[in-house]
């Protein structure tokens, strides 16, 4: 070891990065390379687990431990790892197909168990790696190679699913919104328990512009609302619009006339129930501005906390396994 080496660890690996030119994944990788060295966790104590898809190439590009797992199963692999090596910081990188088609139930159960892992879901609303078929988050009508007449069905909404699974940390950001994404990633890392982050990621090749409303500097301020704990939901290029909670749900109001800032919904990411967070997650383009930021950040015992006292010592586990294996018939077939 070189004793004079830079003390800030470098998380960039020597692998050639293989995504299409212009892919939003580059922006997320750039942020992760900036954020990881600031977390105080050494590269050798950091693990990135992925499934299958363009996003799942992530582990190769970071100089940490990593595992390119099987399709949709990254949360299961990460759960086992965190259970046996609680000292490691474990990240899961997945996409809309990997996490919400193939591995949807793994995702739900990791979140409900509050496994202390950080799950980043790159949502590009398309299957990129397999060359552009519709995904479970594709919007109705999207013409893809597997839906020449346009997709027929309603999409899944990652934030709503995470909240319904009682995830203790739920957030959203945008690939190229560097400052915002960096801050959300830092918050996710700091959270004790499952952290779920949906990242709007542009697939430059097969679904270009899917998040134009949230990315294009000319229009985005009127279509996204950056939420912050304790702050009213104000948005708009001139910060002249806000979200008010009406009996029928959240509604957009213009400030300065009938309504002003004190009338607006004030964001509470620590709320006991996730009812309001679900309403915020339910605000969808083009009817409503979409929220970016941390929707929910609450404390609950983690999976390891809950399991700690229940871990059988290796000896009694052996006995239990033996009993199971040599237990004879459970029932008799007549």
């Amino acid at each position, binding site marked *: 070891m070189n004793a004079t080496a830079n003390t800030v660890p470098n998380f960039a690996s020597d692998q050639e990065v293989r*995504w299409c*030119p*212009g892919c939003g994944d*580059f922006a997320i*990788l750039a942020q992760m390379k900036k954020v990881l060295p600031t977390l105080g966790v050494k590269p050798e104590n950091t693990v990135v687990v992925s499934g299958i898809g363009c996003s799942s190439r992530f582990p190769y590009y970071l100089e940490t431990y990593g595992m390119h797992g099987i399709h949709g199963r990254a949360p299961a692999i990460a759960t086992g790892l965190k259970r046996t090596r609680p000292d490691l910081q474990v990240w899961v990188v997945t996409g809309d197909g990997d996490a919400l088609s193939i591995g949807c139930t793994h995702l739900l159960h990791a979140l409900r168990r509050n496994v202390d892992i950080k799950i980043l879901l790159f949502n590009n609303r398309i299957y990129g790696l397999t060359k552009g078929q519709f995904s479970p988050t594709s919007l109705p009508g999207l013409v893809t190679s597997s839906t020449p007449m346009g997709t027929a069905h309603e999409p899944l909404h990652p934030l709503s699913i995470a909240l319904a699974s009682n995830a203790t940390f739920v957030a959203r950001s945008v*690939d190229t919104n560097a400052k915002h994404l960096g801050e959300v990633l830092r918050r996710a890392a700091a959270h004790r328990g499952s952290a779920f982050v949906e990242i709007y990621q*542009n697939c*430059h090749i097969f679904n270009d512009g899917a998040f134009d409303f949230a*990315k294009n500097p000319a229009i985005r301020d009127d279509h996204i609302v950056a939420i912050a704990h304790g702050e009213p939901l104000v948005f708009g290029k001139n910060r002249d619009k806000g979200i008010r909670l009406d009996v029928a749900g959240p509604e957009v109001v213009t400030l300065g006339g009938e309504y002003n800032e004190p009338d607006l919904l004030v964001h509470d990411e620590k709320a006991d129930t996730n009812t309001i967070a679900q309403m915020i997650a339910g605000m969808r383009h083009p009817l409503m501005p979409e929220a970016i930021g941390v929707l929910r950040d609450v404390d609950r015992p983690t999976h390891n906390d809950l399991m700690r006292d229940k871990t059988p010592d290796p000896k009694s586990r052996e006995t239990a396994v033996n009993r199971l294996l040599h237990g004879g018939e459970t029932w008799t077939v007549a």
Partner: protein
Amino acid sequence: MTYVVTENCIKCKHTDCVSVCPVDCFYEGENMLVINPEECIDCGVCEPECPVEAIKPDSEPDIETWLALNTELAGIWPVITEQKEPPTDAAAWKDAENKLTLLSREPAKV
């Protein structure tokens, strides 16, 4: 890693690159553009857009001077986010060599 703008851009300034960069990290001088290496996410989409092949990855040999120049000038020039018309004499300068001496360090007039 980052991409950098090199000599060929001087007095050409086609700005095709600007329209494709997803993070708006091009900065504009009077007769050249540069990339801010701190902001560039290495996506590589601008490289083939440049009609005069001025954009190169910083893994190319002998790129250090240009990397330093991009870093320095990005700090003092204004950001450019939309494509504009190239200078009328751009074509004439396309294949000229040793254009570095012609570089203006002045920021673009906006």
